[in-house]
């Protein structure tokens, strides 16, 4: 067997090593680039489209291209907006952000009307001299109004009917998930129409924010699925999903419902 010149072997090894270093440099730059982009978004109040105790949601701009789908970024706070006990925090973020992302992904794949999750990550940031890690979720933006905005704006939803909301929650329940925070601000109407007093809005209903959801064992959730133990041993009671939905029924609530009574 002919002897392989040592120079060639050294050259191959050097080339592999160079490739490996090149990849490592790229990955490091990618990580920093992603972090810088997220940090810039989180500092830009102009892009803020929603916020709660646990997280804030920002519009993600795609300059120069009419994308068929708009994306938003949910960035969890490193600590809740107000001081809260562990029990209070559990009421606003029961699932970890990772779990929330996966649960929302499962529901989307089963054709439930939820915002389409796209990607999830942890990014490093520096705040007030502290190094922190933020959880970030990119998802499809549901452009329109939440039901609380529609109620406050004195408009009505002409289409779909209230029964569509019931169908959506039935489908979610079939996936053995309870939402547990179905307040009007967590239900969106996707529409291009302007929100003004007296408007009859038409669009599609979506359910958002699964931060206090949980997966349940049975196909029919019972009262136990709406009770949790806080780390300090106290009991947290979540309202049942069906109670929230019924509170929006125009037959029961009349003018107080955001849905038109057909």
């Amino acid at each position: 067997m002919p002897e392989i010149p040592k120079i060639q072997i050294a050259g191959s090894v050097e080339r592999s090593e160079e490739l490996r270093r090149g990849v490592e440099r790229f990955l490091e730059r990618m990580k920093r680039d992603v972090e810088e982009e997220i940090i810039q978004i989180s500092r830009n109040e102009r892009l803020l489209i929603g916020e709660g105790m646990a997280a804030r949601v920002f519009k993600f701009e795609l300059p120069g291209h009419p994308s068929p789908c708009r994306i938003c970024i949910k960035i969890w706070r490193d600590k809740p907006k107000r001081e809260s006990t562990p029990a209070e925090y559990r009421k606003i973020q029961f699932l970890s952000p990772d779990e929330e992302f996966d649960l929302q992904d499962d529901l989307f794949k089963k054709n439930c009307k939820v915002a389409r999750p796209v990607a999830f990550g942890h990014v490093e940031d520096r705040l007030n001299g502290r190094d922190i890690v933020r959880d970030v979720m990119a998802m499809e933006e549901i452009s329109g109004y939440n039901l609380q905005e529609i109620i406050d704006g004195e408009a009505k939803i002409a289409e779909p009917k209230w029964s569509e909301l019931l169908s959506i929650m039935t489908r979610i329940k079939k996936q053995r998930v309870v939402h547990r925070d179905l307040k009007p601000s967590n239900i969106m109407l996707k529409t291009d129409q302007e929100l003004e007093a007296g408007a009859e809005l038409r669009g599609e209903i979506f359910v958002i924010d699964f931060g206090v959801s949980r997966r349940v064992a049975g196909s029919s959730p019972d009262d136990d699925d709406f009770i949790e133990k806080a780390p300090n041993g106290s009991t947290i009671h979540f309202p049942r999903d069906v109670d929230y939905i019924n509170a929006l029924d125009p037959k029961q609530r009349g003018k107080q419902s955001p849905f038109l009574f057909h």
Partner: protein
Amino acid sequence: MKSPLRFSANVLEELRNAVRTGKPAISTEQGNLFMLLSLPLGAIKLNIPAEKYLSYIESLPSPLRPRPAHLFPSEEKDFEIIVNAAIECLGGKTFINGKEVKLL
């Protein structure tokens, strides 16, 4: 190779379908670029090792080099790179967010 983001199962499935059944937007010796219609995302199926491709990207002159945040190495068997950006192909050139870049 680990990336700072993980993509959802529903997105990965759509990218896989695009690569398996779609027509590439760009096809070169290095690989093929497939784009989604429903999301500002694409996938690159490479004909060369991923390490060589990333090295090529790093070697591009700065005006044409895509941002690192737009290219995510993937461990999927149908494609090696996820392009996390809205891509336009016009006249044989590729644009991300209105700026010309080289992807393949």
